[in-house]
């Protein structure tokens, strides 16, 4: 961050930074410290007594089969969302990049779901698959299947994965398209002249050159599935049936605002905080490397 010509005032820069730093400290840093502090305490629901318990809140979580089950759900859910949305987006981006006419129009038709809130995407898919009135559920039933995500946990998981992926295809599509357009055309032409067909070109040239984009999207999609899909779960299943679609962020919310289990919810927050910090570090490491080469 070197610009050689700079101003040398002492107080002015702090004055300029003050609003951003104030919001960051009051609403981000302080609550995070508070969460870490509370995660070492046991407090009754009325806040009458608190007691330092060390790592007990954490060990209790890791011994809790329900928490481990929810962690497993989160893994299945985020891998599902990442796999579905990235593979469809890659397919569409490769095809849209290859066609000569209509690429701009296709792009417009494919990008707008990005703007749909995860909660609203949930409502749309909930309606389509509603066991009594949903048109898609009716279609499945008329073909001899039986759709009821309100009682069938596997179907519920499939449904929330579909709703969360649908919205994310646009995002992945745009980044894959940008990555594809950055691949030098001469490289592909040279390979074509050497007799490599479209599929071989994709496998040996395009896919390896896209790997930085793919890796970046992998991290972003996992973060999205872990944290931004709260609205999808909350509108569609509220974690049910049973615990089958309960994911970690949803459990933190429940334990904080409904269960009022303060020590445990703080410990869960801290675990999620470590997850998101780890993912952010990975993402930035990679970006630094990309800038270098």
């Amino acid at each position: 961050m070197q610009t050689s010509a700079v101003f040398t005032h002492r107080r002015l820069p702090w004055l300029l930074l003050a609003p951003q730093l104030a919001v960051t400290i009051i609403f981000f840093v302080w609550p995070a410290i508070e969460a870490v502090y509370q995660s070492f305490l046991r407090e009754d629901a009325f806040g009458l007594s608190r007691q330092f318990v060390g790592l007990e809140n954490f060990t209790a979580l890791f011994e809790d089969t329900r928490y481990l089950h929810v962690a497993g759900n989160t893994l299945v859910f985020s891998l599902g969302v990442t796999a579905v949305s990235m593979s469809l987006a890659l397919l569409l981006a490769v095809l849209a990049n290859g066609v000569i006419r209509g690429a701009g129009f296709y792009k417009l038709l494919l990008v707008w779901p990005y703007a749909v809130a995860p909660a609203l995407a949930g409502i749309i898919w909930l309606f389509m698959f509603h066991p009594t009135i949903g048109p898609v559920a009716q279609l499945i039933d008329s073909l001899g299947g039986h759709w009821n995500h309100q009682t069938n946990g596997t179907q519920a998981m499939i449904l929330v994965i579909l709703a969360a992926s649908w919205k994310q295809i646009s995002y992945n599509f745009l980044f894959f398209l940008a990555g594809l357009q950055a691949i030098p055309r001469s490289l592909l032409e040279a390979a074509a002249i050497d007799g490599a067909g479209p599929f071989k070109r994709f496998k040996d040239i395009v896919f390896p050159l896209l790997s930085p984009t793919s890796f970046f999207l992998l991290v972003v999609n996992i973060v999205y599935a872990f944290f931004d899909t709260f609205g999808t779960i909350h509108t569609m299943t509220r974690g049910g049936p049973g615990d089958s679609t309960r994911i970690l962020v949803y459990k933190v919310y429940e334990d904080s605002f409904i269960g009022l289990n303060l020590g445990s919810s703080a410990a869960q927050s801290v675990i999620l905080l470590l997850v998101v910090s780890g993912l952010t570090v990975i993402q930035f490491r990679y970006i630094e490397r990309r800038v270098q080469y």
Partner: protein
Amino acid sequence: MVENRRALDLIAHLIIWIGIALVVFPLWLTFVASTLSPQEFFSSSLPLLPGGHFLENYRNVLFDSSDATLGVSVMKMLGNSLVMALGIAIGKIIISLLAAYAIVFFRFRGRMLAFWTIFITLMLPVEVRILPTYQVVADLDLLDSYTGLILPLIASATATFLLRQFFMTVPSELVEAARVDGAGPIRFLVDILLPLSRTNLAALFVIMFIYGWNQYLWPLITTTDESMATVVTSVQRMLAVGDTDVRWEEVLPATVLAMLPPVLVVILMQRLFVKGLIETEK
């Protein structure tokens, strides 16, 4: 490419159209269903073309404050969402602009510390510190207020980084020239830097507006007064009444209305949107 394979090109177009159909069809179905009367709705199969109750259904949810909409018209909710989205977008841009300006154009002790403090916000999404942040806002007496909806969400590492990246490309001759002409730092910011950043600011605005409009968890926990409810959160409340009582002829039009503003922003400002999206992630 070098070879001209018409069949392959045709297949490509075909698969893209299937993809587009998969992406667009859910919304089309929702829109069609939102124009039906309750009777048509429960009849055996859903038509593929809109029904005749478009005006009636949309007028009902927009202006009537029925029980199903929790005693508040969707118009009022859209207004609340607009205030929140604009507040978040403009707030983020202003404080990030000032912060990035300080970090790039000034040398002072603690500069890196300030930079890393802002960076940390990336690691602390609201979802991982829900309860303590709620407590802070409650202690400041900001529940059920626009300030409470907006202020805690306007810190932005991404906006600060994007503007910092852009400011670093401003040639130092420009700063030099401004100084020789006697322009102080504020003058330089307002008269030179701001006009130069116009496109970047507009692209940021598009992204941040969508981000603000689509907030869900934060309004859900900080607003209990229905007249403060935002539209995205309220649609869920309309749905959470027990399966047989759901009034789909009100829920679906409200859903369509709730997603319309950000979708329109993306479609009408596609170029700025793509620029903002791709650059904020660098």
